[in-house]
Each structure stands twice: as structure tokens, then as C-alpha cells.
């Protein structure tokens, strides 16, 4: 502890106004301070060395305090407390991670299920669209060309043909590139030819069918089948197997 302060002056540390040193002494003290600035001495050198040590240590301390991590000055017990706190925190975080991962797995599974359901629904929509004649179709099939003879083709023969083709697995049919044949299509006889779903058609009738070409052709060539019926009524029938048939006519649903 510093001993520069003699006993007689120690009580000056208290802030008592009635115990102030007189002005004379104050002037002397300031004068000494001024002298010290301009007149170096051995004592000053010693003080300078110690002050240098103090400044050095203070700067190091400030540096370590600001740059080092916050734990450098901690004691053992504090560090143990901090460590156990961190361990608890990390355990809670780990639990949370596990929960979140489980939730993610659940969501992933349900997403896959949804995707499967969606693709199934899309496939079904496509199939139903083909059956309902709402979408254009391209695929292998046959092209049947019926050219009338002297008399018009019989409506029954046309219906038989359509039914036979459906039985043989025809997925989509169109007539003359204009009319899509669907489940509720109707065929009527008119003076000039046929009327299918309100569209008048004349010979030659070109029937585009998508399905397995061999099966379709076989269905048409049965004994007493559609081809022989047409031929009985004097028409000529030409069947061609095609690798790709475009069916572009669409059925307009009655809204």
C-alpha cells in the first residue's frame, strides 16, 4: 500500500470544506508539478519505468479483455457451470433436432404418398379423357376406309363395326377426321349418307382406330363380321395397319 501520505494529512481525503489546504500550499503543489515537467530527475526516471510497466500491463489487459473470448477470465467453478449449462442446451437442441427430423420424415412419406396418388389421378384423367374423347391421341392402330357402292351403307353395319372394334380394345376412334366416336355417339341414316353426332358425313368413310392393330383387324374380318356386312351391301372396304395414327377430332361434351 502506498506510504506517501503521512498520517497528518490522511484525513484530507474526506471531502470536508473546512479542512482545505490553504491557497499557498496549493500554489506550491502546482508549481512543483510544472517544475517536474521541465526539469527531469533521477526520481522521474524511476517513476517513468514503473509507469511504463503499468501502461504495458493495462494495455495487455484491455487487449485480452476485448479480443479474447469471454471465458478467459473465468474460474474453474464458473467454467464448470458454463459447461454443464452448455451440455444441457446442446442436449435440448439435439432432442429438438430429432423431433424435427422425425417430422421431416413423416412429411416426406406423406409427400411421396401424395405424389403417387397425384400421378395415379393424372393417369386416370388421361385414360378417361381418351375414352371421353376430350384429348387428342396418337398411337398404333388401323385405318378402315369404306367406299359406298350403289346403295348407302346400312346404319346397323356401322354400329356393328363400332361395337366390334370396341370389343377388340379400341381406345379411340374418329370418322373422316371430323367426328370422335365416344360411348354416347349416335349414328343416323340420312339421304346423302350418315349423320354421326349431328355431323353429316358422306362416302368414303375413313375410320381411324387406335388399339392393337392385329386384334382390331381380326375383329373386323370375322365370318359374318363387319367387313362381310359392308361387302354384302356393295361397299368396298380397305383396312390398313398403321404404326402411328393421329386422332385429332374432339368430342364436345353437351354442357
Amino acid at each position: 500500500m502506498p506510504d506517501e501520505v503521512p498520517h497528518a494529512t490522511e484525513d484530507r481525503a474526506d471531502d470536508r470544506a473546512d479542512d482545505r489546504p490553504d491557497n499557498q500550499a496549493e500554489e506550491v503543489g502546482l508549481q512543483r508539478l510544472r517544475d517536474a515537467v521541465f526539469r527531469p530527475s533521477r526520481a522521474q526516471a524511476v517513476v517513468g519505468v514503473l509507469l511504463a510497466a503499468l501502461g504495458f500491463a493495462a494495455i495487455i489487459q484491455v487487449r485480452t479483455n476485448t479480443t479474447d473470448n469471454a471465458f478467459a477470465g473465468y474460474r474453474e467453478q464458473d467454467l464448470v457451470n458454463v459447461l454443464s449449462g452448455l451440455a444441457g442446451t446442446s442436449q435440448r437442441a439435439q432432442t429438438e433436432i430429432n423431433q424435427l427430423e422425425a417430422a421431416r420424415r413423416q412429411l416426406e412419406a406423406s409427400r411421396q404418398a401424395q405424389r403417387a396418388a397425384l400421378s395415379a389421378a393424372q393417369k386416370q384423367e388421361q385414360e378417361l379423357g381418351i375414352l371421353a374423347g376430350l384429348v387428342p391421341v396418337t398411337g398404333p392402330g388401323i385405318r378402315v376406309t369404306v367406299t359406298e357402292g350403289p346403295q348407302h351403307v346400312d346404319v346397323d353395319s356401322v354400329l356393328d363395326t363400332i361395337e366390334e372394334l370396341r370389343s377388340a380394345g379400341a381406345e379411340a376412334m374418329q370418322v373422316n377426321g371430323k367426328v370422335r366416336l365416344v360411348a354416347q355417339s349416335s349414328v343416323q341414316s340420312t339421304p346423302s349418307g350418315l349423320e354421326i353426332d349431328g355431323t353429316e358425313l358422306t362416302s368414303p368413310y375413313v375410320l381411324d382406330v387406335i388399339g392393337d392393330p392385329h386384334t382390331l383387324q381380326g375383329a373386323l374380318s370375322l365370318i359374318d363380321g363387319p367387313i362381310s356386312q359392308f361387302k354384302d351391301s356393295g361397299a368396298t372396304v380397305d383396312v390398313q395397319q398403321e404404326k402411328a395414327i393421329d386422332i385429332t377430332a374432339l368430342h364436345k361434351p353437351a354442357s
Partner: protein
Amino acid sequence: MIAALGLLVGVVLGLIFTPDVPAGLDPYLPIAVVAALDAVFGALRAYLEGIFDDKVFVVSFLSNVVIAASIVYLGDKLGVGGQLSTGVIVVLGIRIFSNVAQIRRYVFHA
């Protein structure tokens, strides 16, 4: 003049070298710095009163630092290091305040 230069040199050296504090000394350095500050303010007051003696200053500076550090060391060994360093800081802070109050009277006449 030399004293002020010494302080400046110390600060500059600290800024240039920025050595790492050894781990064993880490808890004692701040206490030692505050104790040394107390000695310096005491010396300044004594100088203004005309009773400054460099030998006394050197001894008080070193003993201040050593005693403050050893009190904290003892406290660490006894398991009350945190409380004891707080106590040392409080005592030294009070002494610094009273010394500065005295210095203020000499310098500002107030």
C-alpha cells in the same frame, strides 16, 4: 516529463507487441493493474503535497501489486477468489477516489 514519457512508451509497447497473458497470470493481471493505479495516484498526491519520495513510490508500487495479486491467489485457493477480488477492487477504488479528490483540490482549487 520522463514519467509521462514512460507511461506513453509502455502503452505503445503494449499496442505493438500485444503479448498473450500466460494462463496462470490471467486472473491477477487486472487486480495488479488497479493496485498499481492506486499507487500512482497516491504518488501524484504526495508529489503535489511535496512529500514525494521515489524510493517510497517504488516500494509501494511493487508491494501494492504483489499484495493485491497474492490476496486474489489466496482467495482462489480458499474458493472465494471471485469475492475477494471484488473486495480488493472496491478497497482500491475507494483509495483511488480519495486520492483523486485530494489531487483535484491542488490542481483545480476545488
